[in-house]
């Protein structure tokens, strides 16, 4: 395929037919590969039974759709429709009133088929069943079953417990084996040791008609630890599927022009030399040079500039910029790995390496825990062996120590809290992409914001009061263009009835003109209206001219993101340092900083400058939370201690950040910090609880006073306390 395309680029333009033939083949191959019978669409707004019914009904009514099922938990719909593409079905859902986005089924494979999760659930079910039955028998033994009855009960317990431990304990054995092979002492080594030792010693005791058997403890260990493992797995799976969903949301397509034909192709398939068309409002998919057309370009995501830049034939454009007014034909100069987007990704990777790997609380606990437990168990074995010379007694006591210290509570301490905290954040509109993000977020003492697209929405708002006589013609003009300023003007003039105008014409990159009551009407750039370059000001502006009268200046300001003021105020009230870093000009940045009460602001900062500023802050000992959306923020997002980006952010920025804001509102950012601090406090409390139980129970075990009853009590009591403590996080609604 590569040589085909290379060949045809040289001949491009010489003979359209020669050109079209290999291209058609290429397109056919692409189409073949990109048409699965099953489609997955994201339905971000779905929330009730009515949504399910209307979405499914609308899809089923569409010819060619065989089956459709909404999954409300994941807010997705799976459609079986051979021959149809998402492009056919998104409008169907839109007509039914549902916002839908195409999801890349390839990116979702890991997330939807959660085999590992179901496998863990099955093991939990089996060990739960075994635990209940063994416990019934054990209670009988504890309450005084004697001689033959006790032996019989122990044998039945063994028959239930041994297969259960062998099956349900497999995740622990496997992971312990892996860590032993790597010559490390992971958390799972003492767990496996306890499981094996407890089972073995109990079987031995049973054959000798001993009094104590730990079958119930072994099975209970499996049960509680598997729950912790499952919660941990779910948090990870949700984070992974959130990340996959975000990547899949932007299935990037470009419009490829070959001869007279336009075809939609995946951006990944673009090659240098391809001619692509970018419609007004579309994002530039690859770096290129304008071959034809005039327009204005919004560079906000790349540079943070709010002012659109004019562009014409010969202008070089970068991937990620947005075309505003006129259709552009673009000759691709760099796509995929070579594009500026990919280069920025490299920058992000560098920044991530610099941040280094964060050691979570759980990892630190496990690191101290494993050696301590082994030493303790081995020590009590040696002690009792030396003291009494009774191997059987010494092994029994060592097993009891291992069982009692086993990290039931420790294994639940972190996953239970993280699960309930991320659930709470999700309901507030924040998706966590990284498991350690909560802990890092809790340590933050400095918050750095980007301006355009983060604190503001990047959508202008009309400030000027348009005189009554001009309102109707101005609206008529504004409706003739999709330029953001025109749309803002139209929105500002809502309620007016547009005047009847003729000869409405958009001049890409300049403005709009029309004839109204015999006079020429013009709305557009100052230089287009013959006014010469205007002074730099804090605001965006456009000009409206009627006939030969002096033009009227229309001022716009960027609209503040909802919740921005409350968020900044709350952060400052919590004693955090708030900094505004923007790539935009000084005047608008200063205005915004004054409006929000941010004292520390810097304007005109390059992407490298942002990353460097974050690095300087980190060197000074600050733990920085970066909130940004643009390409110019990605390096800073990746380099900061923790990072958040809004859902409207560019792909690269969302990939680089730990959390994504799903709504428009910025207020959850301040709440997230509070929840993260609460969660970390709960994790520490849980550690304290489980250590506390050990401090009480371990001396009994070492002294040889531990009974299976005591072990069962300590284990279940500590696990339940830890879980309840974690759930406290959910109950306290603020």
């Amino acid at each position, binding site marked *: 395929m590569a040589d085909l395309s290379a060949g045809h680029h040289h001949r491009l333009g010489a003979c359209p037919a020669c050109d079209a033939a290999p291209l058609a083949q290429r397109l056919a191959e692409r189409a073949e590969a990109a048409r699965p019978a099953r489609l997955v669409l994201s339905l971000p707004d779905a929330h009730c039974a009515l949504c399910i019914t209307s979405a499914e009904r609308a899809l089923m009514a569409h010819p060619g759709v065989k089956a459709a099922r909404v999954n*409300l*938990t994941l807010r997705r719909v799976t459609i079986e429709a051979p021959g149809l593409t998402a492009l056919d079905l998104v409008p169907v859902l839109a007509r039914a009133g549902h916002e839908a986005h195409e999801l890349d089924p390839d990116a979702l494979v890991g997330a939807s088929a959660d085999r590992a999760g179901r496998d863990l659930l099955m093991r939990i079910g089996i060990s739960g069943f075994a635990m209940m*039955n063994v416990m019934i028998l054990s209670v009988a033994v504890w309450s005084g079953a004697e001689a033959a009855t006790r032996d019989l009960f122990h044998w039945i317990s063994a028959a239930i417990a041994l297969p259960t431990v062998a099956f349900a304990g497999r995740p622990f054995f496997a992971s312990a084996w892996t860590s032993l092979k790597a010559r490390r002492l992971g958390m799972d080594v003492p767990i496996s040791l306890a499981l094996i030792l407890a089972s073995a010693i109990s079987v031995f005791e049973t054959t000798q008609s001993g009094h104590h058997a730990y079958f119930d403890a072994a099975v209970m260990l499996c049960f509680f630890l598997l729950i912790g493992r499952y919660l941990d797995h779910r948090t990870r799976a949700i984070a992974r599927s959130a990340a996959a969903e975000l990547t899949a949301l932007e299935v990037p397509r470009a419009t490829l022009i070959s001869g007279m034909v336009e075809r939609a192709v995946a951006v990944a398939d673009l090659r240098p030399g391809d001619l692509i068309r970018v419609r007004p409002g579309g994002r530039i998919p690859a770096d290129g040079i304008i071959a034809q057309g005039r327009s204005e370009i919004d560079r906000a995501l790349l540079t943070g500039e709010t002012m659109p830049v004019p562009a014409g034939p010969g202008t070089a454009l970068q991937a990620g910029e947005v075309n505003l007014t006129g259709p552009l034909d673009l000759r691709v100069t760099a796509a995929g790995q070579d594009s500026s987007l990919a280069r920025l990704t490299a920058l992000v990777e560098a920044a991530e390496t610099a941040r280094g790997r964060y050691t979570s609380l759980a990892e630190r606990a496990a690191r101290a825990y494993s050696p301590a437990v082994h030493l303790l168990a081995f020590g009590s074995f040696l002690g009792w062996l030396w003291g009494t010379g009774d191997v059987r007694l010494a092994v029994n006591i060592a097993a009891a120590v291992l069982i009692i210290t086993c990290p039931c509570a420790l294994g639940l301490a972190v996953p239970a809290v993280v699960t309930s905290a991320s659930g709470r954040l999700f309901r507030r509109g924040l998706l966590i992409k990284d498991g350690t993000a909560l802990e890092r977020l809790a340590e933050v003492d400095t918050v750095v914001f980007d301006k355009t697209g983060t604190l503001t929405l990047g959508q202008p708002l009309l400030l000027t009061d348009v005189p009554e006589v001009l309102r109707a013609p101005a609206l008529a003009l504004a409706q003739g263009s999709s330029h953001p300023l025109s749309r803002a003007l139209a929105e500002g003039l809502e309620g007016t009835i547009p005047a009847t105008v003729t000869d409405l014409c958009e001049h890409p990159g300049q403005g709009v003109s029309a004839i109204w009551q015999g006079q020429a009407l013009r709305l557009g750039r100052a230089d287009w209206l013959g006014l010469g370059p205007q002074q730099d000001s804090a605001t965006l502006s456009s000009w409206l001219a009627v006939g030969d009268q002096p033009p009227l200046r229309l001022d716009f300001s960027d609209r503040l993101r909802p919740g921005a003021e409350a968020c900044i105020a709350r952060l400052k009230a919590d004693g955090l340092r708030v900094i505004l870093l923007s790539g935009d000009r000084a005047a608008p940045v200063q205005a915004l900083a004054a409006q929000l009460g941010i004292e520390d602001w810097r304007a005109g900062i390059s992407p490298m400058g942002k990353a460097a500023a974050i690095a300087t802050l980190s060197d000074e000992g600050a733990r920085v939370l970066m909130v940004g959306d643009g390409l110019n923020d990605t390096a800073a997002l990746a380099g900061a201690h923790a990072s958040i980006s809004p859902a409207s952010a560019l792909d690269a920025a969302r990939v680089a950040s730990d959390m994504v804001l799903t709504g428009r509102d910025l207020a959850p950012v301040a709440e997230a910090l509070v929840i993260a601090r609460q969660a970390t406090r709960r994790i520490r409390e849980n550690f304290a609880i489980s250590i506390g139980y050990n401090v009480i129970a371990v001396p009994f075990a070492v002294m040889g006073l531990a009974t299976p009853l005591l072990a069962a009590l300590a284990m279940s009591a500590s696990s339940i306390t830890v879980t309840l403590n974690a759930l406290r996080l959910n109950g306290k609604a603020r």
Partner: protein
Amino acid sequence: MEILVILIPVSLALGGVGLGAFLWALRNRQFEDPKGDGERVLSDRWDDHPRPDTPPD
């Protein structure tokens, strides 16, 4: 104590039935969309006749 010969197998069998039901539900993906299933109860779409096809998962 002879009653144990009956009671213990009975208790194991009852527990086994519960375990079997759980495993069946798991295999049939009954836990894929708990929120959606809760809401679907309220829909009257299939009240008169059952859904004709088996949906994709």
